């Protein structure tokens, strides 16, 4: 069947010309309603497909079914005399086919005499990887990546690792109230971001600070958000590590698990309507894949043919719940097929594998206007957050093994060194400089004043309604009267 992607913009413009990659030859004008599947509004008559079985040809699938059934079934000739008007051959084919297939709502289905259930467990889907544990390329095919991009990827991975370590310590020292690290998932963060463009919208869960780092969010920006000071573009309204930046097309993190997957599908819908050369990407964990929103989003992305990349960071743990208690399917990748979504499993600790997979997924999403599910297998080498101590529910030796032996940053470095793009001196210089930069950002952010009282009431609506103005006034009066009882570092 014809299946197209809507590359033409939906919104009328004055001087519109059909873009070259428009796959619908008959869609000449963007003023006509966009149809994202040519099946729409066709009535589904049970015999409609059967009428295709004639010399004018029909869907190849149908012809194959017909041929295979003719070989095995007996033709019911006794009916032939009653229907002399019809072409005998056509009748034979029709009745033979009726015995073996039926055009149920949803499509042609073959019948079987075997009472057989599909097994609930299958062999595990293999995992795509490019580099082995020692950073060597696995296949002889050359890895095509620009040296500058590879180096930026590495530097950002180191930056992320350093930032995580120091901010975590800052929380332990009581300087910030909360923090979430991405230890063990640096490759997922940076490599996936590197494979996208700035026009692609990112809908994160909360362990994807690296994506924003790649896009240009500075260390100072991160620190300002964690300290919730006036320079925070979230105006001190969200918990630390709940970053967001319109400039970088990185939607503000909400603590609700899985809700962002739906938002990403909606944003993909808006990109599809506008015919933009961009997609959306959303990240979630193994735990997030159990939420109702995930299933609804996956299903609907498939139906709507939305250009969205659904990236699952299967790191083995949802706080203290291991994946064996989270689901009984072979991870998350098999769900793609169940919903009609193309999917792939990649080694999340292999930066080059993640980079390749996301790059191709982006092409599929945009050119074919289809959702893609990527499951990156990895390990959450850090705790869930600063409110968690994961040694309470998993062996420390496991944590240590993954953190050291499977460190994605080290593996990528070994590959860079193997290609002579990096060396130990550059390494020590980078680590030293990065550490200084992060410490400096924290020291600066700590001293900047907090947002003023007015920011409690602004942005609830576009314009504060009277009840909020009234509440602000009564709060101001209370603070003025009892200044000693209110925090002194909040500007009045």
């Amino acid at each position, binding site marked *: 069947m014809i299946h197209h992607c809507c590359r033409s913009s939906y919104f009328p413009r004055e001087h519109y010309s059909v873009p070259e990659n428009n796959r619908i030859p008959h869609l000449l004008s963007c003023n006509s309603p966009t149809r994202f599947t040519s099946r729409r509004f066709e009535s589904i008559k049970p015999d409609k497909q059967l009428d295709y079985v004639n010399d004018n040809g029909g869907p190849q699938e149908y012809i194959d079914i017909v041929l295979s059934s003719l070989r095995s079934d007996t033709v019911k000739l006794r009916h032939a005399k009653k229907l002399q008007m019809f072409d005998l051959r056509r009748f034979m084919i029709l009745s033979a086919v009726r015995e073996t297939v039926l055009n149920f709502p949803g499509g042609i289905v073959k019948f079987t005499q075997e009472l057989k259930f599909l097994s609930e467990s299958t062999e595990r889907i293999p995992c795509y990887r490019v580099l082995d544990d020692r950073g060597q390329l696995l296949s002889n095919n050359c890895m095509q990546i620009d040296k500058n991009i590879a180096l930026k990827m590495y530097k950002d991975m180191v930056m992320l690792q350093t930032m995580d370590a120091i901010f975590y310590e800052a929380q332990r020292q009581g300087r910030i109230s909360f923090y979430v690290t991405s230890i063990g998932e640096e490759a997922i963060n940076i490599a996936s971001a590197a494979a996208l463009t700035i026009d692609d919208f990112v809908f994160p869960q909360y362990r994807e600070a690296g994506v924003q780092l790649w896009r240009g969010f500075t260390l100072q920006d991160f620190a300002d958000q964690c300290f919730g000071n006036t320079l925070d573009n979230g105006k001190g*309204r969200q918990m630390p590590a709940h970053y967001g930046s319109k400039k970088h097309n990185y939607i503000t993190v909400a603590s609700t698990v899985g809700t962002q997957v739906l938002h990403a599908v909606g944003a*993909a819908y808006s990109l599809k309507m506008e015919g933009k050369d961009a997609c959306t990407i959303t990240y979630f964990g193994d735990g997030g894949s159990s939420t109702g929103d995930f299933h*609804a989003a996956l299903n609907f992305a498939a139906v709507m043919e939305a250009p969205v990349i659904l990236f699952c960071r299967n790191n083995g743990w949802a706080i203290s719940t291991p994946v064996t208690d989270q689901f009984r399917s072979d991870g998350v990748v098999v769900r793609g097929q169940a919903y009609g979504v193309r999917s792939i499993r990649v080694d999340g600790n292999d930066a080059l594998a993640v980079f390749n997979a996301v790059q191709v997924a982006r092409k599929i999403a945009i050119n074919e206007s289809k959702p893609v599910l990527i499951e990156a297998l990895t390990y959450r080498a850090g705790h869930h957050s600063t409110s968690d101590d994961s040694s309470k529910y998993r062996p420390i030796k496991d944590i240590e093994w993954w953190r050291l032996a499977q460190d994605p940053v080290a593996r990528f470095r070994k590959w860079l060194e193997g290609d002579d793009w990096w060396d130990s001196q550059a390494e020590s210089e980078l680590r030293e400089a990065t550490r200084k930069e992060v410490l400096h950002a924290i020291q600066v952010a700590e001293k900047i004043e907090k947002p003023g009282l007015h920011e409690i009431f602004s942005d*609830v*609506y576009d314009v504060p309604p009277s*009840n909020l103005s009234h509440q602000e006034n009564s709060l101001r009066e209370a603070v003025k009267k009892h200044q000693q009882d209110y925090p002194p570092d909040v500007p009045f």
Partner: protein
Amino acid sequence: MEHYPRVCVMGEDVGHYGGSYKVTKDLAKKFGDLRVLDTPIAENSFTGMAIGAAMTGIRPVVEGMNMGFLLLAFNQISDNCGMLHYTSGGQFTIPTVIRGPGGVGRQPGAEHSQMLEFYFQSIPGIQMVACSTPYNAKGLMKAAIRSENPVVLFELVLLYNLKERIPDEMRYHVMQAAKTLVNKGYDPEVIDIRSLKPFDLYTIGNSVKKTHRVLIVEECMRTGGIGASLTAAINENFRYYLDTPIVCLSSKDVPAPYAGTLEEWTVVQPPQIVTAVEQLCEL
């Protein structure tokens, strides 16, 4: 939808079917099946999608087949729709309209007869409006679509089949009672509250200053209903103008029964309104 290409509609059966109550009839033919989008049965799904689309430039109008079903989307509406403008520091706006029919209809049973206003009223960041006539429905819809804030627009099932100028059941009951009272010599001033969040305290206040006695009539349930918060708001702001305590007449705190007679008596009827006013005026 004609004037603003970015306005779109999402909901169950809104496309070629035209909507369960035919509110979106023929829109899909005119604007295409992408702009008038049929969704699978997952209210959290299309509400979440609408939020994502709104953050990236679209102005979606989400149709709940019945307002009661939007309880499935409550997480998206409260935690994301209402909050994201605030928590993002004003960076992302969510100009979405969530609308649907609610309230008692022609015996659709308990699950199809809910009033969701009071579930939503405490969500910060959303605006709520309710229409009571076809005329104000049009105005409110246009205003809601143009608003930069997320708006929940409550419609009433019984309104859909009625022609112009005939109002919804509760307004109809109140106007009937008002006629009876006028014939008995009373002088009631009736305010049809269309803005539920925030309340239009200016108009209400002017009336309280004039009449000094307040009777609230609503289809919400008694406990935790809109009437309860309105009582609190009026008491707080205008207590010196009140001669008597505020009386609030609401639906009974029960699921709406199916049987027609029972259904009728769970909601406020004109004789109850008349009696309440008479009692108020005797005090």
